């Protein structure tokens, strides 16, 4: 009997290890008025029978995920042109697609490829943009995301954020034996890479502005400590290990400082520390909880959570300290803010009527808009182009990631096949 149980446990661990390979994405709410586009499978010239990656499928999925486009299903493609001369615009006009993407993937030498694409305006019969990009096999997905960015920017005028990454934390196991993992994946959930595993909680990842390092909180020594880790090499160093809370690290826009929460003086306060650990300055001084600092894009002020007014609300303080200004007034609970890249919006956890949802405050108008429909939504993070917010939500008995457009009209769910996923943070633009 025990043997069978042990075998079952081993088997389930094996399945779990393999099932956690990738995030899957499910679009949960569509967007009216999405631009119809046809992305034709790229022509293939190489030694193998089939291309090593389906570049067109990656591009189509990216564009669909933005909520701004609706790609034509493969079965509706009336033709498979590879070059501009092969395009018959009247066919595509009849399908009511506004834009057409074609191209070719060529194996130039063993393991080395060249990706060529062109984007057309179907109604005007005009080529809008195109490029030829060389890449080794391992970079082909990135090249596809890069092409998605070019298409998105050409057609919307806004920079694309497909060739970016998300960092997030997962936990698995029961309350007696838990395992925590910090991962980095492409923005479409593919290619997840574990950068840290621990038996103790991992929390609050934050990207450096150049996307090369991540700061986070680890309890691996049975107390909260802040580390900075290089994403590529995995090398890391401990930055803060004061008595009490060492929490909520976020990188300054110039990359030279971290804002963080320390309770070394008795209760949680906001501090700014230089990355070399040399200089530490305290910004807040209240008897209440002050935590979760985030930087304004100009680096001149920080927004943070405080319950100094009796319940958790968001405040702004100058980077030089001084009095804090209250920013949120709607709802009993507003916490865990992120600031949009243009500095004009705040995303937050908004608690009202026993529900915790993601809301966005327009700082110019003061209007608060609730974007999500969960019970326990948390950890909102803006995409670097400000168009989407990724956040953590419950689905059944599990935690999963969701993304919603900033106007709330389009949403999608990203779920791991096993375990709980949380604390997503969107990387800056790739360099």
């Amino acid at each position: 009997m025990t043997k069978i149980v042990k075998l079952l446990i081993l088997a389930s661990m094996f399945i779990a290890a393999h099932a956690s390979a990738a995030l899957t994405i499910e679009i949960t709410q569509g967007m009216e008025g999405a631009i119809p586009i046809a992305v034709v499978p790229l022509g293939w010239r190489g030694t193998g029978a089939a291309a090593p990656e389906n570049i067109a499928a990656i591009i189509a999925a990216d564009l669909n995920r933005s909520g701004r486009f609706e790609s034509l299903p493969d079965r509706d493609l009336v033709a498979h042109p590879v070059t501009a001369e092969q395009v018959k615009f009247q066919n595509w006009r009849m399908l009511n697609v506004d834009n057409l993407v074609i191209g070719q993937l060529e194996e130039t030498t063993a393991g080395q490829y060249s990706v060529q694409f062109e984007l057309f305006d179907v109604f005007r019969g005009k080529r809008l943009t195109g490029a030829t990009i060389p890449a080794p096999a391992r970079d082909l997905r990135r090249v596809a995301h890069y092409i998605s960015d070019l298409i998105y920017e050409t057609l919307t005028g806004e920079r694309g954020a497909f060739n970016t990454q998300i960092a997030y934390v997962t936990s698995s196991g029961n309350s007696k034996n838990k395992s925590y993992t910090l991962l980095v994946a492409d923005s479409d959930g593919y290619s997840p890479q574990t950068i840290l595993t621990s038996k103790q909680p991992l929390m609050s990842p934050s990207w450096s502005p150049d996307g090369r390092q991540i700061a986070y909180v680890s309890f691996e020594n049975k107390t909260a400590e802040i580390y900075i880790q290089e994403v590529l090499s995995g090398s890391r160093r401990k930055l803060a290990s004061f008595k009490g809370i060492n929490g909520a690290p976020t990188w300054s826009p110039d990359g030279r400082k971290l804002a963080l929460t320390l309770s070394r003086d008795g209760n949680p306060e906001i501090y700014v520390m230089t990355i070399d650990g040399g200089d530490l300055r305290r910004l807040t001084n209240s008897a209440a909880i002050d935590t979760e600092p985030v930087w304004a894009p100009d680096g001149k002020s920080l927004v943070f959570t405080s319950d100094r007014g009796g319940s958790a609300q968001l405040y702004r303080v100058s980077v030089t300290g001084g009095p804090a200004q209250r920013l949120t007034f709607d709802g009993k609970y507003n916490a865990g803010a992120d600031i949009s890249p243009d500095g004009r919006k705040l995303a937050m956890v908004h608690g009202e009527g026993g529900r915790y949802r993601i809301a966005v405050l327009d700082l110019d108008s003061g209007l608060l808009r609730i974007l999500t429909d969960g019970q326990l939504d948390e950890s909102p993070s803006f995409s670097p182009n400000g168009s989407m917010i990724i956040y953590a939500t419950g689905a059944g008995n599990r935690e999963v990631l969701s993304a919603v457009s900033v106007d709330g009209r389009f949403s999608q769910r990203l779920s791991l096949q096993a375990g709980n996923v949380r604390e997503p943070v969107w990387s800056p633009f790739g360099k």
Partner: protein
Amino acid sequence: MKYTLGSFIVLALMLVISGCSSKGGSMDGGAGIEDKGTGADGGAVTSGAAGGSDYSSYSLTDPNSPLSRRVIYFEYDSAEITDSDQELLVMHASYLFGNPDQSITLEGHTDERGSREYNIALGDRRALSVQRILELNGVAAEQITIVSYGEEKAAAEGHSDAAWRLNRRVELVY
């Protein structure tokens, strides 16, 4: 430190009151109230010692000992300790006072609602409430370590009121 002082007085008062009401035999609880004006510390210590017997020789491993109760529960978004839990903490304080080489870790926890770092702060505030009662009752600051896990280490899985109630806690870890 405003918060500390305010809560300190409130807690000291609550302690004195609970000290008086809990044990009918100890009539010298009034001395604690008198003392409070000149030094709240001394007043609370007096009341704690008067409120119960000496627990310093109790066994930490005896499941029937009151010291085997090592979890304090809290209301939502609150760090307030109930009267009965204050009595329990006074017993633990008595044990620690009599065993100055014994250390204790206070682990603060919250339920899963709200943002994670705010919950770290809230768990810390709960652990500090417990620490204050222990210190008011004679435990040396050096004996106590505090760590807040916020919502990161739930005692009960699930998303119900019942699970949340079990997760809003401070664990006394000897």
